[in-house]
């Protein structure tokens, strides 16, 4: 027994001084490629501007977003101090758009982040475990898949009632199945590779193999897909608000603004279209950045 379980002697037989040429990791490569992709950088910059404006809204917004004015209702762009006009209650559009960005960004990022962690972990577990665990998790996801995503979000929000928190949960539930499936497919592919077998043959535990070998390879496809879902999430959240299932008035939210302003579309068409333009711009930016991210992360292996 003692002979068979040899101790591993620490062999410090380092002939030469090591430490030449710093290894450049995968993520450093991705960062380098992103920093040269000016289109992506440009749209990332727009997102950053929107995000900064949203974070520092109280300092930037020229007016109180909820201050109404019976006199200055539905004014055109550039009217007095109303840079982007005013809405049907005489509230400053620019201020409301800036404040509305807060909700939209939260609704775009939080559900996707939550769904990425939950769905990703479930997919990782399903793919790595295989067998009946895989069947259980993936068939459950298939049930959720069977509903159209918008309908599912509407149904969940409708069931739990409106409000930001409930729509966050609804959107998270909508995004879990597709992310779970992406993670599961990637994990299943990796699991069959010889290097996982070799790791197992070296005596590594399942957890160690997941952390060192599987996760690295699964992370990129999952993140790429998740980033493409941010714009979808913003759109869905705006849709929920439009239907009255999202935020409650008078909170400024792009979807809700679009909904209340639609009656005034013939009075001030340009002003009424502004929330829609904001939704369009932000989801477009997220989509294009996601595209750039995919290209940067898609390094041939």
């Amino acid at each position, binding site marked *: *027994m*003692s*002979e*068979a*379980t*040899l*101790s*591993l*002697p*620490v*062999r*410090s*037989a*380092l*002939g*030469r001084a*090591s430490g*030449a*040429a*710093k*290894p*450049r*990791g*995968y993520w450093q490569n991705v960062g380098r490629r992103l920093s040269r992709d000016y289109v992506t950088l440009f749209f990332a910059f727009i997102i950053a501007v929107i995000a900064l404006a949203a974070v520092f809204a109280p300092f930037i917004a020229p007016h109180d977003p909820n201050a109404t004015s019976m006199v200055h209702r539905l004014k055109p762009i550039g009217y007095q101090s109303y840079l982007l006009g005013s809405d049907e209650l005489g509230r400053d559009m620019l201020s409301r758009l800036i404040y509305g960005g807060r909700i939209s960004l939260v609704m775009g990022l939080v559900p996707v982040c939550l769904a990425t962690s939950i769905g990703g972990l479930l997919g990782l577990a399903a793919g790595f475990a295989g067998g009946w665990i895989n069947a259980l998790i993936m068939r459950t996801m298939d049930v959720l898949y069977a509903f159209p995503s918008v309908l599912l979000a509407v149904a969940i929000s409708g069931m739990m009632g409106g409000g930001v928190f409930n729509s966050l949960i609804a959107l998270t539930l909508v995004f879990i199945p597709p992310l779970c499936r992406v993670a599961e497919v990637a994990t299943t592919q990796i699991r069959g*590779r*010889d*290097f996982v*077998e*070799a*790791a*197992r*043959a*070296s*005596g*590594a*535990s399942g957890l*160690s193999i997941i952390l*060192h*070998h599987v996760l*690295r*390879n699964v992370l990129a496809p999952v993140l790429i897909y998740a980033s493409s879902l941010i714009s979808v999430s913003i759109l869905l959240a705006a849709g929920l608000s439009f239907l009255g299932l999202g935020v409650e008035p008078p909170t400024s939210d792009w979807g809700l603004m679009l909904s209340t302003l639609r009656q005034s579309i013939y009075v001030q068409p340009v002003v009424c279209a502004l929330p829609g333009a904001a939704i369009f711009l932000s989801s477009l930016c997220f989509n294009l950045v996601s595209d750039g991210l995919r290209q940067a992360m898609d390094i*041939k*292996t």
Partner: protein
Amino acid sequence: MPDTVTRLDPPASRLHDDTAAAPALLSAENLKKHFPIHGGMLNRRVAEVKAVDGVSFAVRKGETLGVVGESGCGKSTLARLLIGLVRQDDGRILFDGHAVGSPQGLTLRDLRRNVQIVFQDSDSSLNPRLPVGESIAYGPQVHGMKRRAARALAHDLLRRVGLEPELFAHRYPHELSGGQKQRINIARALALEPRLVILDEAVSALDKSIEAQVLNLLRKLKETLSLTYIFISHDLNVVRYVSDRILVMYLGEIVETGPTDAVYRAPKHPYTKALLDSRLAVDPRGRIETAPLSGDPPNPINPPSGCRFRTRCPYAEEVCALQRPSLGGWQDHAAHLAACHMSDPESGHSSARQTSLPWQ
């Protein structure tokens, strides 16, 4: 090939190895692996593939055991059984006299420290997102080695397999050639200081000049690290070059075993004979016009009764369908044995009582 392999003191435990007496380092007794095939209603077990069906053999310390056979004869399943990547349905594995997996014997983890494997696909064997130096250092870290020490070990091993650590340790697999990747895989397998290395078609995917380099590297490593090899290949010439002894497998069974020279000079089993005849001759006058062996191996789901080779054997007789020939006396290392009724005087085969086999 840069010759930078330096000799290190062998680990203490290896000093006890008495190579002269050459006891079995690893032996398998009646090893069986049947893969179930599920189908039909309710996913019932409808059949099974008898990938490895009652295989017994032993590897002596310090030797190279070649395993040859057609594709699908169970060579790779045997390799995976020996390292515990698939569990056997029946039979047992002894490492250094200790049964693997039994309460008193070795744990699977102990076995895996002592037995390592190099796969055929050098690309798939390396994590594409991990620098190759880290891939080598991973195994020792699993067994509790500190990160720094494991890295130093990886550098040392890279030098041993002929790759300059400063140039290669931080590279990713896609930056390396096939031969370099296979050298990394060899280094990775050696990182746990195994005593037995299973080379599962380890050089088959390399082109000929690289293959020769890697074979020479393997031979040198074997000498400096006093390793034992199980060399699995379908390339008969390569197996002859590296092996001390040979196992010939057919459809999950061992049909012939013996010292390499004896088997190549005078094969005792008609399958081995056909395999050897199917090698291409360099001399055009030695060309063969007809294939020595035609057809595919029978389906391992439903192998023929008696001798499994009888459906393709030119010497098959009635007894071959009735009785399964056995490979007796496999514990004797020097013996040249064949699981064939023609080698068994008691079998009743018409050629069995003759002094020489029909092809001799």
